[in-house]
């Protein structure tokens, strides 16, 4: 039941973000599935007592990888799929608690939480980077127009 609610709501959240960013209507459903896949990876890993950092890396990796595949299939820029998917991973709750601790003059807790939020943001970036590298190595797309290729 919790799994189903999580699937449903992560799908809805990602699709709603798609609407806010004016994603073409035909791609909204796919945005939702990308967001859902990423969140479910994060959810299963963190439910199994895995640290939030590796869970976030794995989730961001999944999102960007599915995004790349979708981008290739539907001939659309990859950001359309990744942005909505990334949002659930952003450490909004941690950043908020850090801010609250700062305001309450509890600097020890605040610095702790802020560092944690920063590390999670870094994990999202790392997941995206790994996925890009993986995609370029394994599935290899056509190279970008470089000076050399444009000249020939």
């Amino acid at each position, binding site marked *: 039941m919790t799994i189903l*609610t*999580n699937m449903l*709501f*992560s799908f*809805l*959240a990602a699709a*709603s*973000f*798609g*609407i*806010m*960013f*004016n*994603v*073409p*209507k035909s*791609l909204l459903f796919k945005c939702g599935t990308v967001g859902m896949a990423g*969140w479910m990876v994060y959810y299963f890993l963190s439910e199994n007592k895995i640290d939030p950092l590796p869970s976030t890396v794995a989730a961001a990796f999944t999102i960007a990888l599915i995004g790349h595949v979708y981008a290739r299939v539907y*001939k*659309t*820029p990859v*950001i*359309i799929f*990744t*942005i*909505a998917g*990334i*949002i*659930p991973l*952003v450490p*909004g*709750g941690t*950043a*908020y*608690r850090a*801010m*609250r601790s*700062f*305001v*309450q003059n509890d600097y020890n807790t605040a610095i702790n939480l802020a560092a944690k939020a920063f590390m999670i*943001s870094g994990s*999202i*970036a790392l997941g*995206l*980077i790994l996925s*890009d590298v993986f995609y370029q190595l394994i599935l290899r797309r056509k190279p*970008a*127009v470089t*000076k050399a290729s*444009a*000249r*020939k």
Partner: protein
Amino acid sequence: MLEKQYDIMDVSLLAGKIMLESGAETYRVEDTMMRIALSYGIEESHSFVTPTGIMFSIETDEPTKTKLMRISSRTTDLYKVSAVNAISRRISAGELTVSQAYKELKAIQKAPMFFSFLMQIAAAASTSGCFVILLKGSWDNVLPAMLAGALAYFLVLKVADIVPTMFFSDFIAALAGGGAAYLLFRMGLGSDLDRIIVGTLIPLVPGLLITNAVRDLMAGHFLSGLAKGAEALLTALAIGTGIAVVMTLI
């Protein structure tokens, strides 16, 4: 021939401008502009794109031609990004002449947001509500988060029109959203103020900037990557300050 080259540059620049203003990554803008020029027979072109301006020059038998375009406003409209991308693909396939491409791009530039204003507010409310559940909040917190989230997103869109100062709209939206969440909580809606506020703030998160900053840095566009990272950080700080004011008051 000379005029034709300027026309090709105009098409490239217009495509780049629309993409950049709609939130595409820098490397994609540069790549698209060079591809368009290449498809029209200009074999050597250079584009230099930053979040605030585009420089584009072409090398032919005649002297180098360079044009500069200033970008002053940036929004998020992924429809336009994908539409320009589709046009670029058609140009590469040789389906569009220079003047046809220019006309189609102009049409894309003028296209209104597909989803109405109300629909976007509703989407923001829906995201806020969803996040309360995703963050393991209880169901009674969904409604106040949706209401406060809708208010916050409404303000972030509207205040930006009235006061063009950057980051001010994010500050006001976080302030009002946090305040509304607190008031609703005191009125007896919801049981967990923290989760309501986090849900409220989610639509304001600069997700596009974060993703694009990382992607630009990876592609070697350090200037754009750092600029976008700074913009994301300042937006986050503005939101944080807004919510900090609320927390100091309550």
